[in-house]
C-alpha cells in the first residue's frame, strides 16, 4: 500500500469519514463517455462537488446483461462517442488532477478488461486513480480471473450480494470482497422496479452479521426519498439509472449535462444527509438494535 491514500485505502478513508459524520454516503453511477468523454469528465467533477461520496464509473460494453434499458442506452451512447477502456482510464486520470479524495470504482463486464489484459489493466487502472472494481459477471467461482489479482494490486474488488445469496453462499461471496459490499436490492436488472425498504433492511442486517465491511445498497433507487429510506440503515445508497436518464435526457434537449447531474446529486445527497437526522431516534440503527448503520463500529 502506498503512503498516499489511493486504491483500497481511499475507499476505506471515505467510509471512515462517513462514519465520523454519522451518515450514509451517496454512490453515484454514471457511464464513462456518456454522452462523450469531455462531458463525462465534467459530470464526474459536478457529482463530486455536489455531494456524491463515491463515483461508480461504468465502462461501456455492447452487451450489458445485468442492466436495464436506461443503462443499456447509456452504454450505447458511450460506445458511439468512441469510449474505450484506455480512454476511460485517461478520463479518470484527468479527474484525479482535480479531485484526489473522492473514491472512484470502475464498474463493468469482464470482456473489455480481459481483452485489454488483466496484467496490463490493473497497474494502468491504479495509476489512473481507480480505487476499486465492480465486475458483474465475475462471481466468487471465478475469483482467480480478476478478483485476487485486483486485491494484490492494492485495489478493492467490490462484490455484489443479492436476494438469491443465501446464508450457505454468503461466506463465499464475502470472502474476497473488499472496500464495501454492494447489496443488490432485488432480483432483476438495474433501473426497473423499486425496492421494498423493509425487506432490504432485513437483508442488510443479515449480511451485516457476517461482515464488518460497509454495505451499500443499489438497484431501483431513483429519488431522494428512496435514497433516504435506504440511508437509514445502509452505509451508502447507489443511484445509477436516474443519473444516466438525467444525462441522456439533458444531452438530448441540448441542456447543460454536468449541471443537471450535479443538481440531481445535490438533491439525492440532501435526502441521504437528512435521513438519520430526521429519523435517527426511530431508525433502529446502531445504538438500539446493535446491527444497523455505522453505530456498529
Amino acid at each position, binding site marked *: 500500500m502506498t503512503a498516499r491514500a489511493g486504491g483500497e485505502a481511499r475507499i476505506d478513508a471515505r467510509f471512515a469519514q462517513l462514519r465520523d459524520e454519522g451518515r450514509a454516503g451517496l454512490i453515484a453511477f454514471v457511464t464513462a463517455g456518456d454522452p462523450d468523454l469531455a462531458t463525462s469528465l465534467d459530470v464526474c467533477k459536478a457529482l463530486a462537488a455536489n455531494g456524491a461520496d463515491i463515483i461508480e464509473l461504468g465502462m461501456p*460494453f*455492447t*452487451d*450489458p*446483461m*445485468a442492466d*436495464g*434499458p436506461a443503462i*443499456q442506452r447509456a452504454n450505447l451512447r458511450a*460506445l458511439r462517442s468512441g469510449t*474505450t*477502456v*484506455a480512454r476511460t482510464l485517461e478520463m479518470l486520470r484527468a479527474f484525479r488532477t482535480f479531485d484526489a479524495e473522492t473514491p472512484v470504482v470502475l464498474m463493468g*463486464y*469482464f*470482456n*473489455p*478488461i*480481459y*481483452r*485489454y489484459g488483466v496484467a496490463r489493466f490493473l497497474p494502468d487502472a491504479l495509476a489512473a486513480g481507480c480505487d476499486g472494481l465492480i465486475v*458483474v*459477471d*465475475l*462471481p*466468487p*467461482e*471465478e475469483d482467480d480471473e480478476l478478483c485476487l489479482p485486483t486485491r494484490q494490486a492494492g485495489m478493492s474488488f467490490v*462484490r*455484489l*450480494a*443479492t*436476494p*438469491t*445469496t*443465501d446464508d450457505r*453462499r454468503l461466506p463465499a*461471496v464475502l470472502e474476497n470482497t473488499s472496500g464495501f459490499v454492494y447489496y*443488490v436490492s432485488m*432480483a*432483476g*436488472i438495474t433501473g*426497473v422496479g423499486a425496492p421494498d425498504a423493509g425487506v432490504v433492511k432485513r437483508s442488510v442486517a443479515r449480511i451485516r452479521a457476517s461482515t464488518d465491511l460497509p454495505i451499500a445498497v443499489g438497484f431501483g433507487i431513483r429519488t431522494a426519498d428512496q435514497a433516504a429510506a435506504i440511508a437509514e440503515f445502509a452505509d451508502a445508497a447507489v443511484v445509477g439509472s436516474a443519473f444516466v436518464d438525467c444525462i441522456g435526457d439533458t444531452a438530448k434537449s441540448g441542456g447543460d449535462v454536468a449541471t443537471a447531474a450535479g443538481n440531481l446529486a445535490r438533491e439525492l445527497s440532501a435526502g441521504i444527509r437528512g435521513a438519520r437526522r430526521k429519523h435517527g431516534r426511530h431508525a433502529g440503527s446502531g445504538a438500539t438494535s446493535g446491527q444497523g448503520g455505522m453505530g456498529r463500529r
Partner: protein
Amino acid sequence: MSDKRNSYRTGPDERGHFGMFGGRFVAETLMPLILELEEAYTAAKADPEFARDLEYYFKHYVGRPSPLYFAQRLTEHLGGAKIYFKRDELNHTGAHKINNCIGQILLAVRMGRKRIIAETGAGQHGVATATVAALFGLPCTVYMGATDIERQQPNVFRMKLLGAEVKPVTSGSQTLKDAMNEALRDWVTNVADTFYIIGTVAGPHPYPELVRDFQSVIGRETRAQLLEAEGRGPDSLVACIGGGSNAMGLFHEFLDDEGVEIYGVEAAGHGIETGEHAASLTAGKPGVLHGNRTYLLQDDDGQILEAHSISAGLDYPGIGPEHSYLHDSGRVKYVAVTDTEALEAFQMCARLEGILPALEPAHALAQVRKLAPGLPADHLLVMNMCGRGDKDIFIVARALGEEL
C-alpha cells in the same frame, strides 16, 4: 481406446472448464440457480427413471432414432466419398433442437419450475421450446431479435400457435445474441419460478455439458446405424456450427476415434474478408460473453461485433466453449462457408436428393461438396442434416430473386 489423459471426451472439469474455455461468468443473482441446476442434473444423470423418460419421449414423441440415409445421387454427383445424411431434420419440429428441449424440460419439471423461457435465432429452438412447454403444460416466453422475427415469420407464428409468447428484442443487433441477453435479464428478474432452456452448447456451466449430453444421441445412433449399414464407423464427420449443438451432438461420440476426421463449418457470410460473417473460430478471439469464455467476434476493445449469416441459426458472434477447446487442441478442423456457397448447396440437395435442407446444414453440405470429390469411394462421410428448409424458403426465394 485412448487412456484418460489423451481423451477429448472428459470435459468439462468440475468448474465447467474445457481447457481454458467455459466457466461460470454470470451475475451473482444467477449463481445459486446455476449451482442448483448442476446439482439437479447430476442427480438426474444418476436416476434410471430420468433416462427412461428421456428415451420414451425421444422414441414416441420426437421420432428417434432419426434415419441414417445414404445419399446415393449426391455421392454419384460429387464422385468421391460415400455420403450419409443423419436425418435429424425428420425429428418432430424439424430440427435437432427438440432433443435438448426434451431433456431440459424434464429437468425443469423435476426441479418444480413453473415457467419456461428461451432465446431463439432462426426460431427452431424457440419452436422446440414452445413445443415441449405445451407438452408439459408450462407457460413459455421466447425472446427473439426483431430482425430475426422479420426474417423467420413462419416460426414466429408456429410458436404463437403453440401457446408461447414471443417477445421481440430491439436492443443491439436485434439478433440471437441480444435475445440471449434479454432472456438472461428475464431469468435474473424471475429467479424463483423460471427455468431457462438454453438452445445451444454455450452459456454458463453446466449448460454446455448438459446440452451436449442431450444432443449426443445423434452421434450414438450414427455409430450404431453405420455399423449396421457398412460394418464399421465413419471416416469423416461434417456439421454446421452457430453455437454448435448439432455438431457437438454428432462429434462427441467420435472424438476419441483417432482415424475420424471431423469438420465444423462456420458461416462465412459475405466472406471472411468483408468482416460480415459469423465465423468466431476462424476470425474471432477468446473472450467472455453469456456466461462462458470462448472465441468471440469482437473488436480490440472487447466490444462484441455483430455477426452476419444468411442463416439466422448461425448468426451468433460466439460459439460453444467445447468447440473452442477442440479448435485449439486441433482435434476438429473448423472451416467457413459463404452465404453463396450455402445457397448453391441448398439447391443442389433439393434437386439431387429431394430434400430441402435448412440453410444451417446447407453450410455443412457446401463443405461436403468441397471435400467429397477428393476422397476415395470407400471413404464414409456422415453429414448432420440437422434441420429442414421449409422455414427458409422465403429467404432463399429472395436470394434467388424470386417473388413468392
